[in-house]
């Protein structure tokens, strides 16, 4: 699945109403990205062009769910 991780994360940010256009949004996105990395998904490996596997996508979903950020879970 090309860009699956990149796209899922961006959709997740949108569902939370977060945008890089504001300092608050940018900082909150940074916090989420840091948590995803700390919980074992090195986002250096994923881009809009990367061919991502289902295991990594499931791992991302599980990490985001563990953050308990409500609307986007």
């Amino acid at each position, binding site marked *: 699945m090309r860009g699956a991780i990149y796209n899922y994360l961006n959709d997740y940010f949108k569902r939370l109403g977060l945008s890089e256009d504001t300092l608050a949004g940018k*900082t909150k996105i940074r916090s989420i990205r840091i*948590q*995803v990395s700390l919980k074992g998904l090195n986002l*250096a490996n*994923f881009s809009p062009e990367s061919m991502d596997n289902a295991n990594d996508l499931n791992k991302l979903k599980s990490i985001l769910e563990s953050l308990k950020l409500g609307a986007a879970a």
Partner: protein
Amino acid sequence: MNSYISSAIFRNSNDIPSAIEGKNAGLIICFYGSDFDYTELYHTLKNTKIPFIGCMDIARFSNAQYQFETDSVAVMTISKDILEKVGIIAYDMRKTTSNHAMYQTSKDEYASALKKLGFDLESPDMEREFSINILYGLQSANSVLSAQNEVSLFLQSVGGSSGGKLDFKSSSVICSKGMGAIGATAVVRLKPEFSFMIDRTSSFDSHEGKLVVTKLANPRYILEFNGKPAAIEYARIIGKNVSDLSPEVYALYTLGVEPGDGERLITSIMKDDGNNGLLTYNDLLEGTELSIYKAKTQFEDRAMKLKMLDKEKLVGYISFDCVLCYLARDANEEIEKIASLYEEILPGIPKIGFGTFSENFCGANVNQTETYLAITKR
């Protein structure tokens, strides 16, 4: 200098109260050497009734100088004119305290302090509210940071772990709520006319290859990378033999993950176990795919980040800079050059910092990094 924040070096605790008198201080931050009498410092600061946090270190930064002597203290005062609210919390971090106990105590204390101060845990003010952590350096910071992330993922935090001599045998943290093997957190809300920024700098080039953590003995003890003995696989990927591995090589070729936005969260290798296992300064999870980085001069990256700050509006700068960065500057004979950089780019702006045994940045524990807090007037 400005009327909001000031910093200075002292050799005697008794000189501090008169020096800070009239500054309307609402928060004191201090960093002291391993031979400085911190018990006396604690009682002196306690008597001022001003909230404070501080710790022992191996070296510290004040204004335009790196201080390596062990018998001085760098003190920064932040005026009440900037601060709307300040809360100090402390929690037990003795080596006998379990990770779970540290997690639970720091979580309870943190949640209670934030509620008491009226912070919105789910949606803090991202421009005015933050935490400064000073954690006991002979314990892992990860359990405290995990607890804080649980309480409020979006409240930004910055800080570091206390140091001391490089024998890693003694260290201490002091704050208004106690001293010794503790963690201390200052929770702050700035007045509406002020805002803050938390950021980080590390100086590495990407190196080819990936190391997947495939077997851990514990979160800081790697047995295998890519299904092979950790030291052998690490040496292979950086083009060395296992017999070449040393603290210098570990500092030169370090590991990390990236959140995908240009940041790098560094995990440094401390040493090998004599049996091809590797011990790290940071917690890891099995299955994590680590990137590899090669250290380079700190000059360009620091200059770039400092230039991004608005020096016309900046009123104070607090640095939490890895002791390995201090040692690398020393080894590369860059101490003066980089210290001068701060003063050239941020002339006259009060600056303070210390050499940390690990740094924290927005909930992440990192190594070989400078994390910093910059306070600006809008």
